[in-house]
């Protein structure tokens, strides 16, 4: 776990000196097609599309695999301005001109056209939607057209039209949010969310634009506007080139609220979102700055560093030879990779976490280097908070959290600070329990698969975004957590991207019910898919990709933190006791149940340093909650300290563990008390011979007689046992000697 960091570092092609928080990994998805005329990305279906004059090649980007083979569709020749697959991938829509869109049915190859009615308006773009109102939305300079597709007649029907002046628009399928710019400066916006609940119209609002001079009025361009979905919330980021700021707006159902600004250091900026972390690429400066817009803080989580290319073969000669026929090909492509210019001019950033190198026809997926990020900050509680919010690489985040926690304890950092770290871990666990995400990973197999939204015919092999769409969503809106079990069932096998979809498919929230804590963990099932399997240390991760959350249960805290730390730690164990106390305090506040093994460890630690006075207080005040395990540890530790042993006995009695208690009473010589206890609590399964033996060794015939009498009454048929006979004889002998 802790060794992982070094492994992954060495696997980078740039040697260990390279420092980064974000990386892209070799090999990329190669999408070069001979005769390619255009490269498109359809964010609705997450397909990368390359077109030739008569063919459409499409690659699935989710799950991201460099080996993905393209699917080919034939279309008629003609200009191609845009290509989008319908959400169920049954139709292909191709924009032919600013007035015409052509449709193909992929199964039959049938085709039909949709044209603008008026000459004055032109089509700005179009997209497929899953809102109940319509199937496809066409954005024109004069407004919006909502069409529904009728499979029977194989044609579009106009459902609704909205008249608006539109200069340009921005839409992401992830957020289902459509922003329409208008006005002189293009800074007045009309917004619609085409959610599963219907079309929500947002209040009209204006973006901030700083003026460079009194008279010049900068015009906002569509490349300066980014719709971003993090933690299930929708933000809009707007580049203000004059002020060199990135303004941040948050969308609510009934309001758009400006929420601070981020500084930018480059005239060209791009935005990615990886696992809910906001990546602001300062393209000119060739660095990326990371923000975790969860709390109010707008401080970056790490220093600006470049993006790293990882996993590149070290030398061409050694690797490419084995590739046989392809060797030549890979020679050249490797050369390409070497020439891969990070933040080159040809880089196109795709929503949410892809980069397309248009010149080299390469598609890269952006990854976070959680190790590097966590290593870059010494503020442990906030690092843990950050890691606990990660869903994409939940297992890695979890392992990192465990390693960090172990380290701070071993380094004996101030108790206050470690206490805050414990708070973070426990709170996160408690949240994951409440939302149910903690159990998802482990219980995935047991979930019934008949969840309504898994109705895709391809469900066995292929996943398409349409799965999450339609009916599933409305259910989800009502009960996030329960429904998510179905989602995770799928996403654990497949991909991360549709989980992002689900996050965004949640309709906009109103101001009032905005409680950030309740959203993230349930909405964002993870995972990493088979992306990483090229580097061997990831194999382990892949096996455990079922984890839905990096939350750490108390049991895991014991197994992976307290127990190993106890073994490694030298010197006074009181520091570890202090840390465990902090953990218990957090757990108590969050009402998280603590496994007795932590209590047992605490007793061992206290007993080891002979702090019996405190141990007594811990037990009496129930800081260590009573249980069988605790009782037995008290008895064990009480060998050196009778008071402690007594506490253990009392706990057995109160718990109640009748048989154990009775047995110990007999061992201690309190056999008559034990009998009374047996009678009162009707303890069955006691062995009379133990009591008889004890009474016999006391050499008191009265006691022996009493015990015999007791069992004669208590156990039917006792008089016929060998025990009775033997001790009856002994008793008469004793009486004989007394009488004599």
């Amino acid at each position, binding site marked *: 776990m802790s060794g992982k960091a070094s492994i992954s570092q060495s696997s980078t092609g740039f040697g260990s000196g390279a420092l980064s928080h974000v990386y892209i990994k070799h090999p990329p998805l190669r999408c070069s097609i001979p005769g390619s005329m255009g490269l498109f990305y359809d964010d609705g279906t997450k397909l990368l599309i390359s077109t030739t004059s008569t063919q459409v090649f499409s690659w699935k980007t989710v799950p991201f695999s460099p080996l993905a083979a393209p699917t080919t569709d034939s279309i008629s020749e003609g200009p191609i301005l845009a290509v989008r697959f319908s959400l169920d991938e049954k139709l292909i829509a191709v924009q032919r001109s600013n007035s015409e869109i052509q449709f193909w049915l992929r199964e039959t190859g049938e085709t039909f056209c949709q044209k603008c009615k008026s000459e004055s308006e032109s089509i700005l773009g179009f997209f497929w939607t899953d809102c109940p109102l319509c199937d496809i939305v066409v954005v024109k300079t004069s407004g919006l057209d909502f069409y529904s597709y009728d499979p029977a007649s194989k044609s579009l029907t106009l459902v609704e039209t909205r008249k608006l002046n539109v200069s340009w628009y921005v839409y992401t399928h992830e957020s289902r949010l459509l922003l329409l710019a208008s006005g002189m400066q293009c800074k007045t916006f009309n917004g619609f969310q085409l959610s599963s609940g219907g079309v929500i119209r947002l209040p009209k609002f204006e973006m901030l634009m700083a003026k460079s001079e009194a008279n010049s009025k900068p015009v906002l361009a569509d490349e300066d506007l980014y719709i971003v979905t993090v933690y299930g919330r929708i933000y809009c980021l707007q580049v203000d080139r004059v002020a060199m700021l990135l303004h941040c707006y948050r969308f609510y159902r009934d309001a758009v609220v400006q929420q601070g600004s981020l500084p930018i250091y480059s005239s060209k900026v791009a935005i990615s979102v990886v696992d809910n972390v906001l990546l602001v690429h300062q393209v000119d400066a060739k660095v990326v700055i990371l923000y975790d817009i969860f709390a109010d803080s707008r401080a970056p989580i790490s220093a600006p560093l470049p993006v790293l290319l990882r996993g590149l073969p070290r030398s061409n000669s050694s690797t490419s030879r084995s590739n046989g026929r392809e060797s030549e090909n890979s020679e050249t492509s490797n050369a390409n990779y070497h020439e891969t210019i990070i933040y080159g001019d040809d880089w196109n950033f795709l929503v949410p976490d892809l980069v397309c190198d248009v010149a080299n026809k390469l598609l890269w997926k952006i990854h976070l280097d959680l190790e590097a990020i966590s290593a870059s900050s010494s503020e442990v509680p906030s690092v843990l908070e950050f890691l606990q919010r990660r869903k994409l690489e939940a297992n890695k985040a979890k392992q990192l959290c465990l390693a960090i926690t172990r380290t701070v304890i071993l380094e004996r950092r101030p108790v206050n600070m470690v206490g805050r770290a414990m708070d973070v871990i426990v709170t996160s666990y408690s949240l994951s329990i409440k939302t149910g995400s903690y159990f998802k990973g482990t219980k995935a197999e047991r979930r019934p698969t008949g969840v309504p939204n898994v109705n895709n015919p391809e469900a066995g092999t292929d996943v398409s975004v349409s799965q999450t769409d339609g009916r599933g969503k409305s259910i989800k809106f009502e009960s996030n957590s329960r429904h998510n079990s179905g989602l995770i069932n799928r996403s654990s096998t497949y991909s991360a991207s549709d989980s992002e979809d689900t996050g965004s498919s949640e309709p906009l929230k109103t101001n009032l019910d905005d409680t950030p804590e309740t959203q993230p963990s349930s909405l964002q099932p993870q995972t990493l898919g088979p992306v990483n399997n090229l580097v061997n240390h990831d194999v382990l991760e892949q096996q455990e990709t079922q984890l839905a959350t990096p939350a750490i249960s108390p049991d895991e805290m014991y197994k992976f933190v307290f127990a190993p730390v106890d073994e490694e730690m030298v010197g006074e164990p009181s520091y570890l006791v202090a840390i465990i106390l902090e953990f218990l305090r957090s757990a108590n506040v969050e009402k998280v149940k603590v496994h007795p093994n932590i209590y047992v460890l605490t007793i061992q630690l206290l007993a080891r340093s002979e702090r019996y006075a*405190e141990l007594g207080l811990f037990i009496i005040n129930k800081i260590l909650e009573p249980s069988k395990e605790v009782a037995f540890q008290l008895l064990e530790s009480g060998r050196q300290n009778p008071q402690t042993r007594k506490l253990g006995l009392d706990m057995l009695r109160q718990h109640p563990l009748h048989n154990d208690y009775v047995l110990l009473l007999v061992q201690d010589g309190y056999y008559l008390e034990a009998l009374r206890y047996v009678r009162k609590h009707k303890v069955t399964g006691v062995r009379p011979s133990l009591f008889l033996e004890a009474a016999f060794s006391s050499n008191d015939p009265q006691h022996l007689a009493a015990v015999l009498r007791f069992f004669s009454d208590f156990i039917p048929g006792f008089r016929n046992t060998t025990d009775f006979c033997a001790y009856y004889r002994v008793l008469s002998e004793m009486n004989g000697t007394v009488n004599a």
Partner: protein
Amino acid sequence: MGLSSVSTTGEGLLLCVFDLQRGQQEGQELDKILFFYPADLPFSTQLSVIGLSEGLITFTRIFSPEAACEVIEAERHSHVFYEAEPDIWMVMVVEKNKEAEAIWRIDALKELLKEVHSLFMLFHGSVRGILEKEPSGGLTRSHLYPFIMDYLRDFFIGKKLQLPSFRDCLKERRTVQMLTVGREAAIEVQTLVRILESCAGNAHCSSLILFQDLLVSTTLSPEDTINLFTYAVLRLTPHALSSGVSSWSYLRKGYSSSQVAAGSTPAPPGSVLERFYGSSDTSPSGDDRYQVIRPLQHGRWSKGKDGFLITEIWGPDVGSLDLVTPTISLKQTEERMYLCVYQYKSLTVILLIPVSSILNGEQGVSVVKQQILENASLKILKVEEKLSKGWGGENAYHVSGYRYLLVDDSRDISRASPPGKVTTLTKESLLALNKLREEVDLEKNQAKWDYTVHDKDMEMCIRAKNNAWVIARITRGKELYMVLEKANETLLYASDAVEKFSNRYCNGAFSSD
């Protein structure tokens, strides 16, 4: 036996400390005497008391070498013996006087001797140790005299010395009273304990936390806990600081500020005695020959601006304006510790720092104090708030219908009905219970010498003359004493009452299994 010849003066009490190893030669008998109260008694009388005691000890040792006599009951007096250290004996002679309610329980008096000696050890170390340091005995006398006198002063009511009598039979000296806290508060308290410990760096500190006059947490051994707890309740807690306010703790029964003046009464005026004891009670820090600190002196602790308690008892620090931080020695480790006391509202936090771990003396201590202020004060605030919220007032542990005393011998903890409630009992009930307790004491003491492996269990139920039930029940080291007045007459009722009490308040420890 001539015991009656011993006059106990008007106050009905003689108290002496003497060393059997000293003054064995003819003519040097005075050397034996380390302390005598009243000090103004002629030496001849003092010597006759000590001589008698010595004779009894020597005589009884013939039969019981390990435990010589514990008590001699004469017609008008009780002689209580306590061997505080090997051959250092404390003997108390009390006058029996039924009219003056001078009815004692011997074990209670013995506990008193134990207490004063333990406290002495806490501050000055063993008597033998001081004797070895200065064989003439002057140093020892000059330590013992003001210390015991300061201690006894707490028992003066008006001008009369009032020792624990039968009226105190629902109290147990040499035990600790604990505050019952919920789990959440307990965790907070324990985290505070850890923070306190970390304030002194690598030094192995100990701490004691009190809320009002009740113990909340300790990291000391039981014995040291009792000593420090006793001292805290006597002199350090908010109640003790504002002396004069009536207290509900048994430890400070009658003391009020008006007795400070009366305190000078027992001082031996000038002359031979003063030279003998080397101390005149009136001088604040002993006399010129010996620098003697008087930790039990009243009204010498006060709360400083920073929340730490300060006292001039230990004198000013040489070369600085600060006061010397008190030091004590622990019984378990025999380690010398700095005593730092921080007080916030009802919460008293006592931190003990090993002297050996602090290299630059006072300066080092103030660094630790600074650390506490920085790191722990917030937590202290929080803990105080939590405890105050859960605190039920001084009658918190009252159980209506019952007057009880609960003692956990193995943990040296006791809990009792609040004194205000005990006073409602009639004299008959109290006398009956006193008698019952004496019986139990006897049984217990016998069992102690029987070397039986396990604690003796017993149960006694007495119907007193005034028709009250007086009950004692002892189970595996736990003792329960109870008085039920105006109760039903059947024994079944009484035993049911115990059962109920046991189940509700003692986790069923006294339930007849």
